[in-house]
């Protein structure tokens, strides 16, 4: 018997190399062309705290979600497992492998029906010391054991190790030795573990990257040449990647003093004609409220990436949540038009960022890419990201529009006016975050305020017309309809497939464009289903409330909502679908 879908967990302390193990496993898969998705979780300690890493591999298609439970769990230290006990579930029939020299204490083992899982012991540390000469290689030993017992792409994994430590010979050799020792040990175990092997064929190598890295790649592709940001978990990878690569492309990187400055810098760069972006998380987005209004008011293109985490205030910095929705859509004083896009997976982080730049430039407006920790920090194996997406540049004034009396905010059918940029002769204008007339001159005239508000909001119509492609999944009509957003995509998609297997017809609606909302598409969707389920990770049910501003929702709908912290599970969604299908 073999399987095409397996989820493997590794748990230990930070020092145990848990994440490295996960990355080698996922890296091996990607090298082999096998799709995978990897998530990690950490305790609050910066170093040495408890760490878990889960990799799901599929040989029958792309991986959309993390997998609710693990099939095989490697415990490098029971002490550290304790912290994850309520979070990591081992599937019925699953196996837990732990270090022979690390006895499991009563109450430390996984919660899931003790009887239904098998326990195996492998002398991880001893083998590491003996075969690799260092106990540090115990993660590699574990990997080797798993690789062999599960039939994972071992050669590709070894290749991933070698590439990772290409420049560090000693480390490389120790790791490879540990891995090989594990493989060898695994061969001995084979069969006794009783886990189905993972069937897979070698394919074209895949990229392995995180949503945050995909955002950065998307920005570079779209022509971003200026980034200003302030580090904040879980978005810092965007900043870090661009700090290295922007200078390579002649772009500019500034680590700002805070988030207010970051967006101010972006606005400045954009005024000078450079495509510019910042990235942050909830606390930073809150701090940018006033500046976002300035971008909207002065009609300056600006891309803001918000990688959501648990809130409010400092909240839970390392965990995902969908609770910045309200602020993204409604935050900031005054009538403040802005665009919000929510990527659904790692590849979409790339595409959404490209879209964000295109929208920002075409419509001269702030655009928020509303990502979250789940999609931002997980790694996915993906095929190459498209390098043929259109790239839009902003509308510059024609030569005959320039000169005295240049109307920076000229009335136009779609609300967009040609924008001169610093350095353009005859394009000089004086403008303000104060309400202004077509020239940019300050005014407090009631009629002008109304007219200019209308101009700014009109742009949203253009965005909606051009970009309002929501994602719909499943059959054309169905008993059950699921509406969800952003990173909920994966679990919803998997749940739909599972429901289908159970004979339940369900479909789903995921707006990639959150603001302006694809209202017509949504209305059509609502008409196509009998029972509605709203899915979101926000205690306050922000999405449900927001949807109601778009379209009345059936009173008998199910609102599947909760605080973030734990990623959305297929089982939660499936359960709701089952209930609703009754």
């Amino acid at each position, binding site marked *: 018997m073999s399987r095409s879908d397996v989820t493997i967990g590794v748990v230990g302390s930070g020092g145990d190399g848990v994440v490295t193990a996960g*990355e080698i496993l996922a*890296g*091996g898969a*990607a*090298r082999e062309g096998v799709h995978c998705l990897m998530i990690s979780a950490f305790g609050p300690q910066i170093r040495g705290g408890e760490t878990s890493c889960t990799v799901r591999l599929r040989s029958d298609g792309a991986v959309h979600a993390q997998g609710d439970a693990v099939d095989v769990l490697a415990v490098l230290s029971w002490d550290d497992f304790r912290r994850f006990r309520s979070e990591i579930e081992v599937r019925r029939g699953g196996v837990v492998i732990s270090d022979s020299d690390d006895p499991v204490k009563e109450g430390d083992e996984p919660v899931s029906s003790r009887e239904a899982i098998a326990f195996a012991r492998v002398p991880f540390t001893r083998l590491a010391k003996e075969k690799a000469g260092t106990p540090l290689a115990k993660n590699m030993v574990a990997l080797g054991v798993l690789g062999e017992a599960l039939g994972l792409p071992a050669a590709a994994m070894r290749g*991933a190790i070698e*590439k990772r430590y290409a420049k560090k010979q000693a480390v490389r050799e120790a790791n490879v030795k540990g891995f090989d020792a594990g493989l060898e040990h695994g061969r001995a175990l084979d069969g006794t573990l009783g886990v189905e092997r993972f069937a897979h064929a070698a394919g074209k190598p895949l*990229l*392995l*990257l995180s949503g945050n*890295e995909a955002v950065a*790649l998307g920005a570079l592709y779209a022509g971003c040449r*200026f980034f200003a940001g302030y580090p904040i978990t879980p978005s810092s990878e965007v900043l870090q990647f661009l700090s*290295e*690569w922007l*200078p*390579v492309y002649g772009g*500019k*990187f*500034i680590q*700002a*003093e*805070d988030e*207010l*400055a*970051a*967006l*101010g*810098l*972006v*606005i*400045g*760069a*954009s*005024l*000078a*004609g450079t495509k*510019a972006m910042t990235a942050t998380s909830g606390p930073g987005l809150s701090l940018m409220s*006033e*500046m976002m209004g300035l971008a909207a008011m002065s009609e300056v293109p600006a891309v803001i990436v918000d990688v959501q985490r648990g809130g409010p205030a400092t909240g839970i910095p390392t965990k995902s949540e969908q609770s910045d929705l309200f602020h993204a859509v409604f935050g900031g004083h005054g009538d403040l038009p802005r665009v919000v896009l929510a990527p659904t997976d790692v590849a979409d982080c790339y595409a959404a960022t490209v879209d964000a730049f295109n929208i920002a430039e075409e419509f001269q407006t702030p655009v928020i890419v509303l990502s979250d920790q789940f999609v931002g920090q997980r790694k996915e194996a993906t095929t*190459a*990201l498209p*390098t043929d997406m259109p790239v839009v540049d902003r509308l510059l004034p024609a*030569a005959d529009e*320039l000169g005295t009396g240049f109307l920076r905010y000229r009335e136009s059918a779609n609300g967009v006016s040609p924008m001169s940029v*610093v*350095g*353009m*002769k*005859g*394009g*000089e*204008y*004086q403008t*303000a*975050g*104060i309400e202004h007339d077509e020239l*940019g*001159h*300050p005014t407090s005239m009631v009629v002008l305020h109304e007219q200019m508000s209308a101009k700014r909001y009109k742009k949203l119509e253009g965005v909606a017309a051009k970009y309002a492609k929501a994602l719909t999944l499943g059959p054309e009509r169905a008993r059950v309809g699921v509406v969800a957003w952003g990173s909920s995509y994966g679990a919803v998609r998997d749940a739909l497939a599972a429901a289908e297997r159970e004979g339940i017809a369900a479909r789903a609606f995921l707006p990639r464009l959150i603001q302006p909302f694809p209202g017509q598409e949504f209305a059509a969707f609502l008409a196509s289903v009998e029972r509605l389920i709203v899915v979101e990770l926000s205690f306050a049910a922000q999405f449900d409330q927001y949807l109601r501003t778009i379209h009345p929702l059936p009173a008998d709908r199910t609102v599947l909502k909760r605080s973030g912290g734990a990623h959305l599970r297929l089982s939660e969604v499936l359960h709701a679908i089952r209930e609703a299908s009754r």
Partner: protein
Amino acid sequence: MSAATTEVTFKPGDYKSGINPIWCAGCGDYAVLNAVYRAMAELQLKPWETAVVSGIGCSSRLPGYVAAYGFNGLHGRALPVALGIKAARPETRVIAVGGDGDGLSIGPGHFFHAARRNADVTYVMMDNEIYGLTKGQAAPTTPRGEKTKSTVYGNPEEPIDPCEMAISFGATWVGRGFSGELKSLVPLLAEALQFKGFAFLCVISPCVTFRGDEQYKTLKPLVTPIPADHDPTDRVAAMRYTREVGKLSVGVLYRHPRQTMLDGMAYVREQAVARRPQPPTMAELQRNFLP
């Protein structure tokens, strides 16, 4: 933009934007505006190569009156926008302007970092020792004991000296002018505009409406040019011209060039090019993620 450029000479009046200033009659900011026109003419700055950025306040209205790229942004946040323009387009002459409240109450975080980075912009503060636009509350520069709308019992706080702050923050050019003395103000501003690095010019610019009509009369006799033998590279000496009592020293207090923000960026760029002389195509870049 246009190719056919006949050489023009800009006269001060050419820098008028066409918007009429709405400051109170007698406001010190008129003189600052005039100094801007004249210094720009002196340096023959091209309007399209010049950006004037401000925060919010009476003084922050100045960019609206100058024929250049003018941006009147948010209270306290002129400098980030100014730095963004400069970083993205180094050939631009970037001038940030604003009030004492704007720069020193809500804005010192940005002021501090712009100075620390030695950002290549000129920052002109119109110090009237009060909040003008909001009609007369105390600023961090308001003299102790002064009765204002927010200090009816007399301001209990010690005022600060903007030039002292600028020097402490790391500004590499610091000067003080007086809007009652346009003659000395124009060359000062012209020097600031030509300086490579963060140049801070504080102009004592009376608010006749909320600090009384007497300001000019009181201040005028106190004006003292900084002596010719002052060594502006000497920080300690420069500090002697701060927190003055009964004197208003005008001139260049401090001048001490060092690596600027743009120098730092150029250094980074060099390093990046050295490491990767040929920037990879987008498809090539992705391949870095092949594990």
